[in-house]
Structures are given as structure tokens and as C-alpha cells.
């Protein structure tokens, strides 16, 4: 672009980057179509900020989800050049001067533009009982808190970092082939609670793990762990659950319940 060769002052604001967004407005579009926008480039601008620029200055009808702008809320997941990313954690400088292609998260139905229907993931998340299930002979509140050693916490801490952004579901080829698969984030969170020393719900959750659509739909592609913005490593969580499920299978052979 000629702007690059221009002397100082105006040069920075003259740089533009092309952003192509896959639009879909169900009430008027028969099918999704790409729309091209030109956004002023600056190296510290995130893709989410570029989307906000488009909405504020170019086309107010573009829909996308966002909230925290700091990779905590997990709302702004989208496909950037076919790779699942958080809009707030991906920067224009990593793509410039190439065009950026933005699409709604893969493997989920598009609700509108970059907004997807995460209903299936939320249903699975609920199903794995993502909360501590205390033992039945639980102690009274007046007896104080449950203490945990640093070692006990280390066993599950990594898997508790999940922000439910759904990037791993967009990355998972097995979920793409068959959405009955419980999927990476739900299984990583299942592992998180099963590995917690304060939890007594393992037996209930292992029933989900042991199914075909539990851990056994996973073929350890590992892309979920690559795209995870929080370093949760769901692929490792699933592999560990496969070992647990195998132990459970052997025990079940001799002691059927």
C-alpha cells in the first residue's frame, strides 16, 4: 500500500487493514455472505476493537458478543482466518497487511453474524454437574471451611481456569462430526470436579465419562488444547479421564453395580 511509503505524521492513520466478516441476518439473508470492511490499522488494536470500530463507524448492524475485553468473560470467541480465537486476545499486527477473515465459531449454529447458539455446550456443561457435590455425611456449616493442601489444589487448578468460551468445541473435529460428543470443555470441567478433594460426586460423573459419547468419542487430536486461550489443556484432561474410565471398566467387570 502506498500509505506505507508516505512520510511521518499521517502515515500511521493512513494504514488500513481489510476485515472480511461473514454476515448472516436470518430475517433477510437466505444464507451467510462475506462483507468487506476497511479498518484503520494500528499495531495495538485487537480484533474485538476492530469490530467495535466497524460497528461504531461503518455498519451498525454487525452483531457480535463481547464483554470484558481481557480474556476473562469468554464471550468474543470467533473464527479468525479459520482458527478459533478470542477477539480480545488476537491482534491486527499478527495479520497485517494481510486480510483478516472473521466468521462465527465453527461447529455451532449461527444465530446472527458472529453470534452463535451455544445451547448445546451449555446443556452439556449442566449435565456434568459442574459444582462440588459433598459427601452425604457432610459437616455442618458451623464446623467451618473445607481445608485443602496446595498439592490437593494443584490436582485440579489448571482445569478450573476454563472460561466457557467454546473455542475448543470449534476446534474439535470429533464434535464437528458428531455433536453427541460431550466435548473438551465439559470434560475438562468434569475432570476438575472429580479431581477435587472436597468433591464426592465422581461415581455420578463417571457414568457420563464411560459412555461412547463421553471420553470415548475423543481420538486425541489435541487441537482443543492448542486453541485454548487459558492453557486448560482439555486434551490432557480427557486422556486422564480415559485412564480413569478404563480402571472403572475393569472394576465394573468384577463388581457390577
Amino acid at each position, binding site marked *: 500500500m502506498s500509505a506505507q511509503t508516505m512520510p511521518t505524521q499521517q502515515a500511521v492513520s493512513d494504514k488500513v487493514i481489510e476485515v472480511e466478516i461473514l454476515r448472516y441476518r436470518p430475517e433477510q439473508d437466505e444464507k451467510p455472505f462475506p462483507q468487506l470492511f476497511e479498518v484503520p490499522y494500528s499495531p495495538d488494536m485487537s480484533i474485538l476493537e476492530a469490530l467495535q470500530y466497524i460497528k461504531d463507524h461503518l455498519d451498525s448492524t454487525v452483531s457480535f458478543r463481547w464483554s470484558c475485553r481481557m480474556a476473562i468473560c469468554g464471550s468474543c470467541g470467533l473464527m479468525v482466518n479459520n482458527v478459533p480465537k478470542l477477539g480480545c486476545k488476537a491482534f491486527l499486527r499478527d495479520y497485517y497487511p494481510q486480510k483478516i477473515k472473521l466468521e462465527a465459531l465453527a461447529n455451532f449454529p449461527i444465530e446472527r453474524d458472529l453470534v452463535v447458539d451455544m445451547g448445546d455446550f451449555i446443556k452439556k456443561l449442566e449435565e456434568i454437574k459442574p459444582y462440588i457435590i459433598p459427601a452425604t455425611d457432610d459437616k455442618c456449616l458451623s464446623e467451618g471451611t473445607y481445608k485443602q493442601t496446595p498439592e490437593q489444589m494443584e490436582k485440579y487448578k489448571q482445569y478450573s481456569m476454563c472460561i466457557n468460551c467454546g473455542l475448543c468445541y470449534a476446534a474439535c473435529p470429533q464434535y464437528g462430526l458428531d455433536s453427541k460428543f460431550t466435548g473438551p470443555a465439559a470434560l475438562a470441567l468434569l475432570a476438575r470436579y472429580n479431581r477435587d478433594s472436597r468433591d464426592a460426586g465422581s461415581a455420578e460423573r463417571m457414568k457420563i465419562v464411560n459412555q*461412547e459419547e463421553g471420553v470415548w468419542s475423543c481420538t486425541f487430536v489435541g487441537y482443543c488444547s492448542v486453541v485454548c486461550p487459558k492453557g486448560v489443556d482439555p486434551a490432557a484432561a480427557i486422556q486422564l479421564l480415559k485412564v480413569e474410565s478404563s480402571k472403572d471398566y475393569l472394576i465394573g467387570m468384577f463388581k457390577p453395580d
Partner: protein
Amino acid sequence: MNAQQTTTNQLPEKKYIRSHEPIFWGLFGAGGMLTAFLTPVMVLVTGLLIPLGLIDAEHLSYEKLHQFVSSWYGAPIVLVLVALPLWHTLHRIFHSLHDLGIKRGRDWQQVICYGFAFAVSVFVFTLLLQMLSL
């Protein structure tokens, strides 16, 4: 009525069906481990060290190998070396068929894949049993 009970038991009891995959995954894992460790060694020995004359080819002569395979310790080693990588391979093929989107006849795919691994394992087992000289 117990209010707490009704709020926690809203979902109807779901039926969970246990998968038999642990058996095949176990064989797959064991076979994969063997393949990963032994294939480079085999390539090194048969593809490089013997042709280069660094190992005397006489060590892998028919008589020597036949003697090893028909011994009480050689037979089970050969059975494991043939059967486990075979189970590994066919498990991978079975899952690759799914990855390629071939949805028809999953039951038959399973029977053919694991059936083949089983049949060859049994064949090798009986063959080794016949060769066994105690």
C-alpha cells in the same frame, strides 16, 4: 414436599450406556507403545546396521530365528510383537473410517476391523504353538 429435592431433580433420570472401548483402547495404547519403541530399532537393525555390515547377517539367519521363535520364551515375545501392533493398527483404521465420514455400517466396520485383528492373533498363536519345541 421437600423443596430442595424438587429443584435438584428437575432433569429426568438419564440412561447411561457404558462403552466397551477401554478394552480396545488398552490394546491400541499397548500396541502403539510397542510400535513407537520398536519400529525405529527394527529399521536401524534391518535397514542400516545389517546392510552396512555392522551386524553380521548370520545373527538373523532363518535357522537362528526359527530356533528363537520355537523356544518357550521366543514364542510369546513374537505373539505380542505381532498381535498388539495389529490391534493398534485396526483400531486406528476403525476410527479413521469415522473421521473420513463413512457412517454406513459402523457395526460391520467394527466386526471386520477387530475381527481381523482377532483372527490374525489366533492364527499366529496356533502357528507358534505348533512350532513350539520344548
